[in-house]
């Protein structure tokens, strides 16, 4: 039932609005609304009950294992939430003057420094609001760099076929055309194919390493020099940074610019679709172009660097300083991990992934890259099951929900048919992994013995399988009171 369906004319949560009706006489009638907006008219308790119940209809990290590849759904420490929501922090206006901002800015400054260290980059700007905005900022800096050198011929960005969809989309938003580079049979970028297309029109390449194929690209140095020699720059999509913290740093791989998904590697919550944060780090040559604002420190005083301080900056990406509250959560998380804890992230997430991969292969599942080490994630392909039994990846995914596990990422990367991209993260216990492995094995057996059972899943959720085609064809995007839902 929708909150609207509990609405009754004249009902309201009266404690939540001013008790006196204010005086609107300063606003002439012509500007005024003629009819009240149709918002639900409900009591405070109805609201609390409705949204409490709705929340219970979600899977979430706090209730389920969520092995969603390339999404790094790890535990979100509750302390980060509490401490980022201290009353004074919540009350701080973005335009508060420096004397009321030193505490807050200290956190941001230190986070910048930490990100420099873990990525091996020269400088960091925290302002991008998510990974995709980080990508936009990164590509925009590449463009600014070429433009500053008067190099107008570079119109192309190279993107491996395994890349996330945001990569090509971001490149296009920066005015580039995108050329796709195939992956080789071992999952690494096909360097020969790359060699053929790289050239004076190449502005840069957007690499994800470890890639979303769940492997570390072993020829990264070769790729880097190939692109650099052609005058292009290297963009590093840091969405999978969790896999390599403290083991290898993008800066050391020769990357010129990188974004970090704090809502992945730094454990800020996903919130059902954000907010996240996608800070960018750059090598020396891109430093002048970093987006504003940033925090600078001198003599123990913090201050904002804005357009005036950074005349070559690509500019501003949001009205204020990005998703500040998310940055605080990441900062608090990093403080609790420290250097050693950060290194353990890569170690245990990789341990978990390789353990699962091995056990699932032993159980008869097909790995997309059976000869490769898993990074913090790996790919199974259910091609065989789909062909032989008519039970496809989506069916497996939906049936997993019945077993109390969130489904892995499905049908991505696009190049592996019927794929499941599985990322356990370091915060899951071995028992949880074993439970998931057993569930997959049972479903495999179900698929063999009773494929219709799997194809009809899920059964134990608030709704059965939903009709996506109907959703798109008979668009129903807003509630109307005369609709008989």
């Amino acid at each position, binding site marked *: 039932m929708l909150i609207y369906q509990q609405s009754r004319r004249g009902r309201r949560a009266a404690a939540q609005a001013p008790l006196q009706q204010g005086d609107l006489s300063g606003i002439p009638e012509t500007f005024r609304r003629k009819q009240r*907006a149709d918002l639900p008219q409900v009591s405070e308790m109805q609201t609390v009950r409705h949204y409490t119940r709705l929340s219970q209809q979600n899977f979430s990290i706090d209730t389920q294992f969520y092995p969603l590849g390339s999404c790094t759904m790890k535990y979100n420490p509750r302390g980060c939430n509490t401490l980022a929501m201290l009353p*004074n922090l919540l*009350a701080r206006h973005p335009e508060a003057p420096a004397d009321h901002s030193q505490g807050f800015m200290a956190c941001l400054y230190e986070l910048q420094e930490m990100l420099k260290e873990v990525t091996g980059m020269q400088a960091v700007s925290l302002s991008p609001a998510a990974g995709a905005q980080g990508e936009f900022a990164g590509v925009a800096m590449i463009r600014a760099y070429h433009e500053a050198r008067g190099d107008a011929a570079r119109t192309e960005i190279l993107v491996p076929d395994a890349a996330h*969809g945001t990569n090509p989309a971001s490149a296009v938003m920066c005015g580039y055309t995108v050329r796709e580079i195939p992956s080789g049979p071992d999952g690494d970028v096909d360097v020969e194919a790359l060699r053929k297309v790289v050239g004076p029109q190449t502005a840069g390449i957007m690499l994800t390493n470890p890639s979303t194929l769940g492997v570390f690209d072993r020829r990264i140095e070769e790729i880097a020099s190939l692109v650099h020699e052609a005058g292009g720059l290297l963009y590093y999509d840091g969405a999978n940074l969790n896999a390599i913290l403290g083991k290898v740093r993008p800066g050391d791989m020769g990357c010129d610019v990188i974004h970090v998904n704090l809502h992945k590697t730094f454990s800020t919550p996903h919130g059902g679709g954000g907010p996240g944060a996608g800070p960018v780090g750059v090598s020396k040559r891109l430093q002048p172009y970093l987006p504003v604002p940033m925090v600078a420190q001198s003599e123990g005083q913090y201050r904002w660097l804005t357009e005036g301080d950074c005349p070559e900056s690509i500019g501003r990406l949001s009205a204020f300083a990005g998703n500040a509250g998310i940055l605080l959560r990441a900062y608090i998380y990093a403080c609790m991990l420290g250097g050693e804890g950060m290194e353990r992230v890569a170690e245990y997430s990789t341990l978990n992934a390789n353990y699962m991969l091995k056990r699932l292969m032993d159980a008869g599942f097909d790995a997309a890259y059976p000869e490769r080490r898993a990074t913090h994630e790996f790919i199974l392909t259910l091609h065989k099951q789909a062909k032989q039994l008519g039970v496809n990846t989506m069916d497996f995914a939906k049936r997993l929900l019945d077993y109390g596990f969130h489904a892995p990422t499905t049908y991505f990367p696009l190049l592996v048919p019927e794929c499941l991209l599985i990322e356990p993260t370091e915060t899951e216990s071995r028992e949880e992994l074993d439970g998931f492995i057993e569930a997959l094995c049972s479903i495999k057996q179900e698929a063999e013995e009773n494929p219709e059972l799997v194809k009809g899943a899920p059964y134990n959720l608030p709704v059965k399988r939903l009709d996506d085609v109907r959703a798109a064809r008979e668009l129903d995007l807003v509630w109307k009171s005369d609709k008989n839902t």
Partner: protein
Amino acid sequence: MPFIPHTEEDVREMLAAIGAPDIDALFDEIPATLRCGKLKQLPQAMSEMEVAGLMSARAHQDGAPVCFIGAGAYDHHIPAAVWQLASRGEFYTAYTPYQAEASQGTLQVLYEFQSMMAALTGMDLSNTSLYDGATALAEAVLMAVRANRKSKSRRVLMPRTVHPAYRRVVQTIVGKQGIELVELPFDPAGGHTDPAVLAAFDGQDIAALVIPQPNYFGVLEEVDALTDWAHTNRALAIAVVNPVALAVLNPPGEWGQQGADICCGEGQPLGAPLSSGGPYFGFMCCRQKLVRQMPGRIVGCTRDLDGKVGYTLTLQAREQHIRRSKATSNICTNQGLMATAATIHMALLGSEGLERVAAACHANTRSLVQRLGTIAGVAPLFHRPVFHEQVLRLPISADGVLDQLSELDLLGGLDLSRDYPELGDAILVCATEKRTEPEMDDFQQKLQMILTC
């Protein structure tokens, strides 16, 4: 090990299962030349208790001055229920609802959000959020240029009365696609965009006109005339609005003869704490026929195998994960939790509550301006009606005055000289429904004291 559950026995047995001698061996595909050493520049780990001490100290250091700044971020009361509910693990730690059957909570909330935003703006439909108000405006401009098939020019008219930071963000984002933003001046007496200035563009190929309501100065624009001009000139009308103001102001869907085509804005006033500027959320609503040009996630109502109502992400073919380089936007992770909070906030306030909030803000700002106006040399700069912000002229440098007020634990408004040097010593003040009579009296007294020193 913080946040890692492995026992020594687990590690031993897992490595044995893998057939690896130690954890480090799992990284053997990384070229040795690249392997880094320890992350030595990172500080030592702190316990939650230690970080709690650190964060409390920092929060305490910044204090909680009384806030009369608005300028795009507003200090509204947020019902306690909003964040107690939105912080529930099931909302807070869920992913984007790709697995619809396991995400009906979030999906239904977002469907309700779309419904509420459409109702508030008077538009046909809404997406489920963009990063913030500024990026929402940038996306609106891109969308308008894409959608306006009648225009070839990629020229967009942008009043100077639009929030300066928004204008900068739009420039950063749309500039790379060859879109030209043409600035419209404001009327020095009214502080609004005089529709007459548009005469200069009559008959030109303009893709869209941006119309703020209220504008950055708090002033109400002649939205009907501006919208109609746009439509007469085959330009799309993009509204950029304060959602709380819409509780009392004519909604964009009803501007002029046909209503605005796209409506966007900053959602912060609907339940997001000031929080140093973020996370907030951008909203975007549009007319039905533009739906396939919309950026961002959209939730649709559908049926399950049994015919039961359910919710799912829809029209995903607009998005980057399907359409890649041809997507309507690169946005992926958006501000879902903030939209969730806003939904709860709007449910609790309702339209009458929101109207009371809007009215109280308006009345408080008037009352503040009236108080401050009794001080010699302090007076409103513009004569037109405002919503809940107003520009005041000061007799001496705004900068110094605001610094002194800040030392007295009062944020007295925003210095406009950075962005509008032509206004002289002017500040933008705002008194939301949270500001009390004693606080306003206090402001008056402190300002008086500073100005007479």
